[in-house]
């Protein structure tokens, strides 16, 4: 029996996407921000439908897609991100001519749906297709400012490198299929657990290629080269979208894939993730120091954040299911904190850039005088990234690192803490511009568009709430992390019983 009902939330999302594109097609004169609010409404409906899937028993669609709390977690995140980015874009795109709004908003929803499927995929090709749907949506979104040369360049770079990484990923998948004889995650785990001979070199190569492919998607060093350029060239709301949704989707895929299909070969990949984590956080933070452009700074700082998150993936490979749950729930709660923080930062930046038109760090000069509220939101976001108390990052980074601490990973955890320290330096450089200097020329106080103001305020409250009372976010993340390991232990038990 094919359970089509499992995709009801995505039907809503994609339906609204089609509707929006149709509206622009048939009623080209419609006010463009109507489309944005329609997208936001669609995201809300999608979110509400997603809520109904919480706390249900896991259900599989033909062994391709699994609907459980883990999938629901990412579905809700995706809907939330699309909601915020749509509202952010409403104000931002007013100033840009030549943008096809229908496609812009439609693709946001499609990309979000792709993320849900990436989280729920239990089969390699499903995962690959979802990944490609996400990537193609992003290729277009990054280049949507057609008349902006930087946007064009960014999109081209992103497509070329993305295609390259897709090829690596696909080649890895085919090696895995060749050695395991199946594309289903559970089947792969079973095949690898029951093989007689030792580790096949083809498996090692396959795993490393897959790792490179997903490493590219989450922009882990040394596969991060595209990120700063794509971030810089993309419209500001899409930069926010890239650094939240695309990363979260990458981690959703990695988590499910490596905790189920490749769990037997943990010894092979865990060191690679550990090395990737150490390299990524160090590269990201050290290069961030030299940046003058805000978007590039955020790009490198988010690369640093990915480095911290990768420790959790490495920790999955060390030890038992308990460590796995600890590490995964730490990673999920950090993702929530990171996403809320990033969106808050970008809401405020969008409002500031709408006014000043400058995307340089120096463009924020004297913001504390001209628009104290935006300066406050930006400061809170940056402090949250750095992991200072009162802000989301303090609690979530603590859970992330604490959950990933094992005897083998503690040195990387120490490195991560050192890196947080480095990151504080360049965050302070931004805060310095806003608070220690007077605005240039005769800049005076200005008002922020109500939508952006409200968005920034709500997200600021979110940062503070998670920072001061992380219990609910943490319990939610743990609930989402559990199915991954229940399934794994059930599969392990099944294998033991089989003759």
């Amino acid at each position, binding site marked *: 029996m094919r359970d089509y009902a499992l995709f009801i939330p995505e039907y809503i999302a994609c339906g609204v996407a089609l509707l929006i594109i149709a509206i622009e097609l048939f009623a080209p004169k419609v006010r463009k921000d109507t489309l944005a609010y329609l997208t936001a409404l669609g995201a809300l409906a999608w979110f509400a439908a997603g809520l109904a899937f919480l706390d249900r028993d896991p259900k599989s669609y033909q062994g391709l897609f699994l609907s459980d709390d883990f999938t629901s977690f990412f579905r809700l995140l995706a809907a939330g991100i699309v909601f915020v980015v749509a509202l952010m874009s409403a104000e931002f795109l007013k100033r840009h001519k030549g943008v096809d709004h229908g496609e812009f908003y439609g693709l946001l929803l499609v990309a979000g749906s792709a993320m849900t499927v990436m989280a729920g995929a239990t089969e390699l090709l499903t995962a690959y297709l979802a990944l490609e749907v996400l990537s193609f949506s992003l290729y277009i979104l990054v280049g949507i400012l057609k008349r902006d040369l930087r946007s064009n360049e960014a999109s081209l770079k992103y497509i070329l490198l993305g295609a390259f990484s897709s090829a690596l990923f696909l080649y890895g998948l085919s090696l895995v299929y060749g050695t395991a004889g199946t594309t289903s995650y559970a089947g792969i785990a079973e095949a690898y657990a029951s093989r007689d001979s030792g580790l096949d070199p083809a498996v090692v190569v396959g795993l490393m290629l897959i790792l490179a492919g997903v490493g590219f998607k989450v922009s882990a060093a040394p596969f991060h080269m595209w990120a700063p350029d794509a971030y810089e060239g993309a419209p500001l709301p899409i930069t926010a979208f890239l650094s939240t949704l695309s990363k979260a989707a990458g981690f959703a895929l990695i988590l499910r894939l490596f905790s189920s299909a490749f769990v037997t070969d943990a010894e092979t990949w865990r060191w690679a993730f550990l090395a990737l984590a150490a390299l990524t956080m160090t590269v990201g933070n050290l290069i961030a120091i030299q940046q003058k452009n805000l978007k590039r700074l955020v790009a490198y700082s988010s690369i640093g954040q990915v480095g911290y998150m990768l420790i959790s993936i490495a920790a999955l490979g060390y030890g038992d299911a308990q460590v796995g749950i600890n590490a995964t729930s730490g990673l999920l709660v950090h993702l929530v904190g990171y996403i809320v923080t990033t969106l808050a930062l970008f809401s405020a930046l969008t409002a500031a850039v709408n006014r000043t038109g400058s995307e340089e760090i120096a463009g924020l000069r004297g913001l504390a005088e001209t628009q104290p509220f935006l300066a406050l939101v930006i400061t809170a976001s940056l402090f949250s990234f750095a992991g200072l108390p009162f802000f989301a990052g303090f609690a979530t980074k603590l859970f992330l690192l*604490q959950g990933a*601490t094992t005897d083998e990973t503690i040195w990387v955890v120490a490195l991560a803490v050192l890196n947080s320290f480095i990151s504080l330096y360049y965050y302070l450089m931004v805060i310095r511009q806003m608070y220690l200097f007077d605005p240039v020329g005769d800049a005076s106080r200005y008002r922020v568009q109500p939508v952006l103001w409200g968005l920034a305020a709500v997200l600021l409250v979110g940062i503070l709430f998670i920072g001061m009372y992380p219990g609910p976010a943490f319990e939610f993340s743990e609930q989402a992390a559990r199915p991954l390991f229940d399934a794994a232990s059930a599969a392990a038990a099944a294998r033991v019983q089989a003759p």
Partner: protein
Amino acid sequence: MTFDEGQGYVVLATIAVPLLAALILVFTPGSQKMAVRYISAVTGAILAALSIYIFTAYQVDGDQAQMNLRWTWVENTAFLGENGIALRLAVDGISALLALLTGVVAFAGALASWKIEYRNKDFYILYWILLAGVFGTFFAYDLFFFFFFYELAVMPLYLLIGVWGSTRKEYGAAKLTLMLVGGSVLIWIGIFAVFHQANIGTFDLPSLWAAGQNGAISPTAQKVIFPLMAVGCGVLAALWPFHTWSPDGHMSAPTAVSMVHAGVLMKLGAFGIIRLGIQLLPEGAEFWMPALMVLGTIGAVYGATAALTQRDFKLISGYSSVSHMGYVLMGLATMNTIGITGAVLQMFSHGVMTALVFLMIGALYDQAHTRDMKEFGGLAKVMPLWVIFYAIAGLANVGLPGFSGFTAEFHIFVGTFRTYPVFGALAIFAAALAAAYMLRMFATVFFGPTNPHWKDLKDLTPIERLSGAMLIASIVIMGVWWAPFTDRVGHTVTLLPGVTG
């Protein structure tokens, strides 16, 4: 939330009141500068009253941890047990005294900032957040919240110094923040290691202390982790050679921030060494304390020597703080009751004394716009009250009997001579140097020929008098009647692990 003996709310109030004040200020229009000042003055008065109450209500013959409060925050999750993380607050003899210090200095500092005109609302918001952090750190009985409040106390400094400071303020602010956060990084790594080693799934400090004492945190691990904690906290306590932020930071900071910073914040560092070092890692403490003794002594002598060569008032006080915090570290390193008691008393004594010094420097700088000692002379004729106040601070600084400095330093020297006679002798040498730089200051600034350029300087304003008088009262009370102070501190110190009679 559970309260014990109905007193826990008093402790919570010390954190809630400044945060509430900050919140009220957020919604006060920035143009209402007088309203901002009055709100802050009232907040300061409430905090002073609360801290005096906590100090006097502390039962010397009662339990170790009094006025408990516990509010569960996160528990029963993947890696946290049923104790998990809780906002757990309590008062022991050491924190009772340090809270008193904080309350008095906070009030005095709020009054000292009366003259700030530039964005005074923002200044006070940050100031009260900082103080909430300080109180929280002193009362925290949970490792997570200890660090939380510790960071909360350090972070506002960047803006407080960077925006309202003077003399290379950006450099001072950045250097100070980065060095202090660098120290926090070490503490943070230490916390991860402790949590992982103890493996009891809780951040509850008493449980972790027990783990440290019954060997659940292995002696080897303790020896590895202790330097992280000691150096991490030591940075804030101006432990030599990590003290270099201190003179620069103090020179750049505005008056009230210097007062709170030198007066209270540096004590957080030394307090951290007690909480996270001696109490949490007793084996590590025993192993490393001789090293801390060496560094503390170098700091004491070096700070005094450097102070002798400075001309800027604030630099003199900055280096003298390094020297006095060196005594504190020496006292802690003795690991005997009298030495550690002396160290805690010295934290209090240096706190009020140095706050008074910075208050006086601020009062002068506001009018003269210079702090170069060589430019002044004969101020005793122009500003007699200022000179008297400053002289009291100076005499307390050199440890004259009848002032708090004597009580504290006497205890430290006795403790040091018991275990490390050579270092005791060096410390007394440093005290002699302190007398030298203070007397030099008396001679050149207070007396000597009057510089006519300064004949129009005004003496202390009523608000400055009130602020200074509170600090002087604390100095004198502890100097002449120290039993209430030593009783409370001793009550706790004798029960610290690894401390000998």
